[in-house]
Every structure is written in C-alpha cells, then in structure tokens.
C-alpha cells in the first residue's frame, strides 16, 4: 500500500525531471537560428486540459475512498472510547470520565468486526494512529480537546496493533503509545 504511493511518486517525479533535463539540453544545443516551441499557446491549452482530466479522474476515484465514508452504513460491533492525555491513551468500552480518566488494561477485537473508536483529548491535540503488526500505519484520526472524532475500521489480520501519537504534543510525544489485540 504505502510503497505503491512511493513508487507512484518516483515515477511522476522522474518523468517531470526528465522533461526539464530534456528541455535544458535542447537549449544547450540551440544557436541563434533555432526557433523555440511552435504553437506554444495551443500546446499549453492541451497540457492544461489533459492535466485537468487526469486530476478529475483522480479526484473522482479517491474522494469516495475517504475515511469519512468508511463503513458509514453499517452498525459497529464494538465501540471503544479513547481519551488522549499528555502522554497516555485511555481506552475503554464505556464512556471515560474526564475528571478521573481510566482505561482498560487490555483491549481485544475480533478479526473483521467493525470497530468504532470515539477519540477525544483531555488536554492538547494528539494523534491516534493505528499501526498493524508489521508497523505500517493503516488508519488514523486526531484527538482534539472538546471534540469527538469517530473512526471506523475492520482489522483483517490477528496480532498486536500499536497506537502512536501523531500530533506533536510536547516533550514526551515520541513515547506516547499503547496497544490492542486482534484475535
């Protein structure tokens, strides 16, 4: 998944750089008699049109895949309340009291069941990022004070999943983490 993004980026980057290098080389080989680009206005028009079509296709393919629509018309099997606080996550099946936040020691889901995380923060902004057993980021939302973000997800593989904080929250940000299990 993520390496395909990198690969895609590399391909378009190399193509763009090649065009620039090629254009530079044509300039190097030119003398006073060469005439530059023929019909630049027409070419510009086509270039913009093609770009617009490509972007349009990209937008219409990717926007429906946005996380806001993930499993939007299903009922979640498990609901987990998450309260982030410098520099901890509390996770619980029941609502968390902001004055005395407490979470469960371990959280477990079944594979392929729909889980809804209701994520908030009790102090500053934090991130709630789920990493799978091979430490790839697979889903995330923000933990913002005063708001609850609902993230729905189904975990396909059993194993230990890690949560890392992905919004800078102060000096122990890099230590802010927790885990849950999928069986």
């Amino acid at each position, binding site marked *: 998944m993520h390496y395909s993004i*990198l690969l895609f980026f590399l391909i378009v980057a190399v193509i763009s750089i090649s065009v*620039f290098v090629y254009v530079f080389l044509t*300039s190097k080989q030119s003398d006073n008699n060469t005439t530059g680009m023929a019909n630049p206005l027409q070419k510009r028009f086509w270039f913009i049109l093609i770009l617009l079509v490509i972007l349009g296709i990209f937008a219409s393919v990717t926007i429906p895949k946005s996380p806001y629509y993930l499993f939007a018309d299903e009922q979640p099997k498990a609901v987990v309340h998450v309260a982030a606080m410098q520099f901890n996550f509390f996770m619980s099946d029941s609502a968390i009291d902001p004055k005395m936040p407490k979470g469960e020691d371990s959280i477990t889901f079944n594979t392929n069941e729909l889980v809804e995380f209701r994520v908030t923060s009790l102090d500053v902004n934090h991130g709630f990022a789920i990493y799978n057993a091979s430490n790839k980021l*697979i889903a995330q939302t923000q933990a913002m004070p005063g708001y609850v973000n609902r*993230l729905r997800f189904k975990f396909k593989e059993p194993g230990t999943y890690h949560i890392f904080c992905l919004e800078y929250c102060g000096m122990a940000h890099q230590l802010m983490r927790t885990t849950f299990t999928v069986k």
Partner: protein
Amino acid sequence: MTSRLKKITSLWITTVLLLFVISIILGITMRFNQAEVIRLSPITFYTDMTVHGLTMIGIWFVAGMAAVNFIMERYVKTSKFVNILALVLTVVGVLMFWASTFIGKFHAGWTFLYPLPFKVMWSAWATPLFLYSLAVLAVGWLIWCISLIAAMLKKYSITQVFAWQYFKKGPKEETPPFILISMITLVGIVTCLITAIVLVVLLFAEYYSKGTFVNDALLMKNLTYFFGHAIANEMLYLGLAVIYEMFAEISGRPKWKTTWYVSLAWNCTLFFILTAFFHHLYMDFVQPEGLQILGQLASYLASLPAAGVTVFSIVVAVYRTKINWTLANLLFFIGVMGWVVGGLGAVIDATISNNFVLHNTLWVPAHFHTYNAMGNVLFSLGFFYWFSVNFSNSRHSEKLSALKLFLLIVGGIGFLAAFYIGGADSIPRRYSNYPAEFVHAKTLALIGGVFASIYLIGILIFFVNITRRCVKILFSQSA
C-alpha cells in the same frame, strides 16, 4: 535605483544567509539525534525543531520580500524607511523568539497549535515572550506589505494591478507580470498576517483572562493552518515574481508579457491558496465534510495555474532557445524543477485517502523540504547571486558553479530521499527518538543527516561568496 536600496538589500541578504546556515546546522543536529549519533534531551530536540521551523519560514519569507521590494523599485517608488523598519523588526522579533526558545525552552513547534503553548513545560515567561515575538514579526511584515501595495496602487488602478483589463478584447494598458504577481501575493500575505494577528490576540485573551475565556480548539486549528499554509505558499510566489521578471533578462531574452491566461491563472491562485489549507484538517473528522472535499479540490486545482502557466512558461522560454546560462538562471530553472517535484508530493498527500496513512509521517517534511530547500531557496539564491555580482563590480568567476550545484543537488536529493522513504515506511514526523518498531528510522536519519551536510557545504560556499560581495556593496561609496 538608489544606492540606499542596494545597501538595505545587501543587509537583508547577509542576514538571511547567516540565519540559514545556523538553521541548517540545527536541522542536521535533529537528524543526527534521531540517528542516535548524538544524544540531546527531548526538550533540546524540540526546542531546536521549533527554532529551525520558524526561523526558516521567517527568513525565506523576508528573502522573497526583500527581492520583490528591490525589483519593484523599477516600476514604482518604494519606501526605504519601511524597508529598514521591517529589517529592524525582523531582527528584534527573531531575537525575542530565540530568547523564548533557547533560553526559555519554549518548544510548542513552529505551528504552536492551541492549546499547546499554554501547557507550560518551559519557563513561564517564555509563552508570552514567544507570542510577543510573533506579534512583532507580524506587525513589521504587515506594514511592509501594505506599504508595497500602496506604492503600486499610487501608479496602477485596481483593474490594472490585478490585470483584469486582459479579459476584454484589445487591452489598452499593460500590467507587467511582476506587478500582477506581487499584488496577488501581497494581498494573500496581508490576509494571512491579519489571521496571525487574530490568532495571537485570541491566545493573549485566553492567557490574560486566567481561565474565564477559553478558545475553541477546532477554530484555532483552522486559523493556525490558514496562516501557516498561506505563508508557506505565498513565500514561494514571491520567488516566482522574481523569476517572471529576471529569468528572461538574465538569459538575454525579451521580457515576459502578461496575457489573459497569465492574468486568469494568478487571479485563480489567490482563491485556491486561501482555501487549500483545509487539507491540514483532513484527519479532524468533526470538520464539516464539505470543507474536506473543498480542501482536496482546491489543492488539486491550485496545481493547474502553477503547472499550466508558470511551469509551462519556463519550459517555453527554454525549449530550443539559445540562452545565456549563468549560475543565476540555472538556479531559477532547477528551483522550478524542485518546486514541481515537491508539488507532486504535496498533491499526493492532499488526497484524503492517502492522507489517512501519510498525515504527520515523514512524508510531510519530505514534500515541503523539497519545494523549500530545492525550490524556494534556489529562487532566492539565484537572485542573491545575480544581485551581488551585478552591483559589487566584482569579476564574477563561475569556477565553483558546477561544484556548488553538484553539492546542492546531490546533498538535497539524498536528504529528501531519506524523508520520502521514511514517510512511505510510516515513520512519524516530529519524533526526537524513534521507537524500536521503526526498524529503518535510525539508518534513514543518518543518511539524511550525512547528505544534508553535503548540502550545507554547498550553501557555505554560496554564503562566503555572496556575503563578501554584499559587504562590499554595503561599504561602497557610490554603488
């Protein structure tokens, strides 16, 4: 062109380059700490990070402004007093900011996202000092922008300054592209600086109310990124204004002219740049969905005028055309390339479904360092080089040109590659030390740090050559 303006500009250039070298060293320090080659306390790391981020944004913003101010004098009379005032306020603001960070240990990151500045993990006085330093910078820059806008409006009408007359058949008056782009960009900057001031006022209101007034975190985040996104993008456009003016001139080619599509593109840019910032809040699911979609569409559409007009114009200007290549226009050309590549990385990340797995990973510093370190920096270096050679009457040797470019390009690519790979590998950004789960993180940090050091050597050569010539301009009797 008055010699006073040349002296002020020389001063700006020297200041920017000096602060740049310091900030790069902080950047390399961060990478080596992440690689565990050196060991800083997390507080020191995050203080470095805060200083590095805000100083970099500040200096490349003023670098663009100083260049635009210098060139604008060709068309209209600009105020030397305001220019110097802006320099003084910038230096004062940076010193206040450094005091709050280096001495007070304030380390809320360059975005100082509410309510982090109030969760004091540093000297209590550092928060207000930091906010005052922002206020000084914002007010100084606002005065500068408004003074430049006023200078243009004295000569050009509103229609003309935005080049709207090109939408009618047979426009009677001309608008130089430089004036159009400067105007569009300065209006954007004024909007974003006013937002910064509103932000600082809201923060102060909460700070001094002692708990009776509390801000809304979502609103504050929107304001923060409206400001942060706009300033980071507009400073690139300042560089583009310089390129529209100088590329043809340095290349020995006829000057670029405004046409209807140049006018249309830049007028659209003003709109897109002010709405694309919503892509910073994709992972805040409570943000209205319409704004999220608008964020992706505006981010996509912002690339059309950029690629279709500016980049295409550079390509047309160079393709099969004999050009007098010097270090200056080469830097412009390579800078546009870096801008495009960084833009591709940005469009990928501005896609909501990708952002789901890239947001706040190293992909973010990867793409914005591409269009800064390999884009905007090169735009400004091109101008600095041209300026210092042109006005110091020095015989300019292009001896080291190839070496300098080689160091910047090789160092830059290696430094950035480590970020991109880290991003695809899900490694978080803004981590002083990496948890053991991220097995490649330390190695990548080491590679990034080593290549960044190569980049630094290239910059040091530029620094020595350019400042030497600028000092000469500064102390010359009749420049």
